[in-house]
């Protein structure tokens, strides 16, 4: 019997997992797909920066100081978006700057999500002192204004890419942890969890095999939304002068540098700002599409 049944039983039917369905729903949504494509383009831009950038982003030429964009008087097509105060090509710096934003956005959200999910699961499922301890830490961290916390941490650790990531992660994990904890509290009362307990499933199995797959989609949705947020936070930190080390280009610090010249060299801070807006907007649109696709009950 077993040999006879093995193959055909499943082959008869195309299996559509819920996740796959969500992905198909997402792909069918033109608006969100466009946004996702823009996000992918930004990622490609970051990855291929050395090949895409028309100039060395660090090459300073004081003779080109504050040269306007190509279409303005005094502009040059090879310096399409003009030059900054050190005569560096703004377009190239924007292209390189995407590396900082994307690296930090992805790294922070990834680490925070993993940490937050594990802690949220532990707090929500185990309850008791584990929950009390984790929830207290969450409460305390929530009491801190985000930027002030990050600024203080940056002052403590000093500038640098890794430190920005750490400074943001230290508070960012609270977000997925709270989401996960809430979802777990709801999920652990579901009958399918009781069903697993009724057959003696160990705690670890219930947390990671029964509950986790079911709460993953809100977590993914929240993570993408937070990624947009984190990118703005990094830019804000860089804007306040606590970002990556110069001459590394970061959009936030480019805006900050350009601020001194807003009275006539408006292009210096306008274009990097548009880059931030575009990337963050795309991520937000895509994550909204993701939410609609993964959680159809929100879809209207």
């Amino acid at each position, binding site marked *: 019997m077993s040999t006879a049944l093995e193959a055909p*039983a499943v082959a008869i039917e195309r299996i559509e997992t*819920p996740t796959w369905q969500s992905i198909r729903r997402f792909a069918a949504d033109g608006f969100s797909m466009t946004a996702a494509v823009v996000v992918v383009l930004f990622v490609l831009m970051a990855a291929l920066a050395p090949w895409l950038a028309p100039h060395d982003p660090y090459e300073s030429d004081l003779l080109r100081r504050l040269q306007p964009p190509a279409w303005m008087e005094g502009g040059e097509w090879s310096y399409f978006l003009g030059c900054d105060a050190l005569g560096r090509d703004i377009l190239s710096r924007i292209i390189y700057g995407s590396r900082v934003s994307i690296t930090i956005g992805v790294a922070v959200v990834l680490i925070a999500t993993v940490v937050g999910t594990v802690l949220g699961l532990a707090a929500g499922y185990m309850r008791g002192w584990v929950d009390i301890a984790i929830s207290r830490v969450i409460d305390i961290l929530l009491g801190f204004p985000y930027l002030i916390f990050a600024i203080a941490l940056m002052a403590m650790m000093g500038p640098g890419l890794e430190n920005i990531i750490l400074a943001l992660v230290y508070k960012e994990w609270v977000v997925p942890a709270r989401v996960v904890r809430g979802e777990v509290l709801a999920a652990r009362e579901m*009958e*399918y969890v009781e*069903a697993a307990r*009724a*057959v*003696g499933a*160990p705690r670890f199995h219930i947390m990671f095999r029964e509950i986790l797959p079911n709460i993953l989609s809100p977590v993914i949705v929240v993570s993408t939304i937070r990624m947009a947020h984190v990118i703005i936070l990094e830019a804000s930190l860089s804007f306040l002068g606590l970002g990556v080390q110069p001459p590394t280009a970061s959009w936030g610090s480019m805006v900050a540098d350009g601020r001194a010249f807003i009275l006539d060299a408006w292009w210096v801070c306008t274009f990097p700002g548009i880059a931030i807006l575009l990337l963050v907007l795309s991520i937000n649109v895509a994550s909204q599409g993701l939410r609609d696709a993964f959680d159809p009950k929100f879809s209207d």
Partner: protein
Amino acid sequence: MIEAPTRPLLEVTNLAKTYHLNKSLMQRLSRQPILDLKAVDRVSFSVGSGETLGLIGESGCGKSTLARTVLRLHEPTSGSIVFDGIDITKLPYRGMTALRRRMQIIFQDPYASLNPRKSVLDIVGLPMAIQGIARRADIRDRVVAMIESVGLKSAHLGRFPHQFSGGQRQRIGIARALILNPSFVVCDEPVSALDVSVQAQIIALLGSLKRELGLTYLFISHDIGVIGHVSDRIAVMYLGDIVEIGPTRELLRAPKHPYTKALLSAVPQIDAGPKRERVKLTGDVPSPLSPPKGCKFHTRCPFAFDRCRVETPVLRPQRAESSAACHLLEAS
């Protein structure tokens, strides 16, 4: 004390389950009234091997809590549970695991009880995987056999719960509960979420499976019609207490407790012909958070007298293997 007609498979003595609703230190310190919900209040009964004990009661009477506490899905507050001669009241979670092969549960909600992210194969095969009693390929064979015996097709194996109707989902739940060959199954309102025509299908299925596999059921429902048809004996619960328990026919023919009488007379009957004398109840079910003193039913009982408001009646044997907890019965 309430003996099952056959060798008891499950014996429950003075089982109680209390939920502390405001247990944070601060709430206690701020001297808010302590909200203790006595969902199950020192209940005793037994289920004989091969028997179906029907448990009926209105919403919030504690019947589901009782069922889950019996299976140690919830921890009992006091009392004891003996399953097949083994006292499982204090067994640790891991110690319970082996026993869980023999006691299973079918849930009410066919939507919430199946993990939406798992295929039928994973859901029905989970108990075997957890219990570690079969290799993967064997699990698959066993699952195929099981789902076919509950009326599904082997082609459904890779589907996900959302691709099934309510009735089919309930069949999956039944397959999961029965795949380990348990001897004792709690059916927690297995049909109340289903449409009438599907209800009948599931009741029929549960009946035939019982006969085939020699199962013992603790069958919970708020529908006296369903209970009447599936049970050998019926226990009636009101606000955490069993107020009457007895053989089905006896209990339906000649209910003793006023609540049982009211319950039976309230059920709308499709048949013409002589109606049961209506015992009309007034008022609402009191909150389980602050149950009335004395007999918990006295606030709605048309026959209540002074003693009922003070003294809590205990379950006493009546004629024909029935027991009921009512001061009236004692008097007569």
